[in-house]
């Protein structure tokens, strides 16, 4: 697979997909409220049900978005995991860039001027 030198960006290609299928399948299941509730009741059991590997489990436990991406997560499915945690895209943006949420929002606003 081609590797593209785009800063701070991992293209979700076949290589990433192969790493992350179980993790992405689990997060896709979070469309349904019943599944979100089941996950909240016992996260470990839910991760086992979906066959997550150790790297993915750790990233889930740590709520670490960069680690989830590195473990093959696709952001569209991870966004549903973030929803369970009541985190929005500025929250996860701030986490990934190491900024405060306010600083992250200011960076967005500055891009408009």
């Amino acid at each position: 697979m081609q590797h593209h030198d785009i800063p701070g960006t991992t293209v979700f290609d076949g290589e990433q997909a192969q790493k992350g299928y179980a993790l992405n399948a689990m997060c896709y299941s979070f469309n349904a409220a019943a599944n979100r509730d089941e996950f909240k009741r016992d996260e470990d059991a839910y991760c086992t049900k979906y066959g997550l590997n150790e790297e993915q489990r750790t990233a889930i436990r740590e709520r670490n978005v960069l680690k989830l991406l590195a473990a093959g997560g696709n952001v569209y499915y991870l966004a549903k995991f973030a929803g369970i945690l009541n985190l929005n895209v500025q929250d996860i943006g701030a986490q990934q860039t190491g900024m405060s949420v306010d600083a992250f929002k200011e960076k967005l606003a500055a891009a408009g001027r």
Partner: protein
Amino acid sequence: MAQIVGAIATSHIPAIGKAIAEKRQNDPYWKPFFDGYAAAHAWLKQARPDVVVMIYNDHGLNFFLDKMPTFAVGAAAQYRSEDEGWGLPVLNSFPGDAALSWHVIEHLVADEFDVVSCQDMAVDHGFTVPMNLMFPDAGGQWPVKTLPVSINTVQHPLPSPARCWKLGRAIGRAIESYPKDLRVVVFGTGGLSHQLDGTRAGFINKKFDLYCLDTIVRDPEALTKLSVIDLVREAGAQGVEFLNWIAMRGALLGNVSQVHRNYHIPISNTAGATLVLENRTAAQSQAA
């Protein structure tokens, strides 16, 4: 014959749907954004569409990686709005036009587009937010029929800008060959520049967005020289949604003029934008 009277391109960010659900349209953060839609509403009133062809991207509601389409076309009597994981209120189903859908699918396959046909389909915020934005007085009864076309932005390799342009052209031809006098508006949703994932999260590229807004009106085929990776680089990882705009623009086969344009940074993580275009074909000019 059916005619495409114009097109509307608009961002479709979930936060918009949330703001509408929470009736925050007049909050200081939101007011300038929602006010920007007045011109689109006015145009839609006089355009009087019977059908909206909605070109968007599913973000992981209807499709998963086990069966990931490049191009999917709805062919149902209605399309369901569903929970996408954030517990937002679900909207009323959107009426379809199955006869028109099958006409389009027949033409696309004959034109060698290898589409996925969907006879049962949930539509996510890429579809529902623009409907909510453009028909704010719908009150639960959508006043148009809809025809969803979902373009893959989830699993690379994505279809190229050139391929999406050609898809749009083919959709335009298909609609114009439909033997019912329907007024059709094509929506292209998503964008503009944004990136949610990685250390480049929060990336916005105003310069490139303005280039896209200019070029898509006056020289859209220039955009077909871009690769998907160019879009990722210049517009952000999720800025690839501009593919939907390119397909929308491709469907306008006549003389195209800009009715309205708005650009607003930021809405959530995104550069929000709206474009309203009129399409005048030879047939329409004669009838006028």
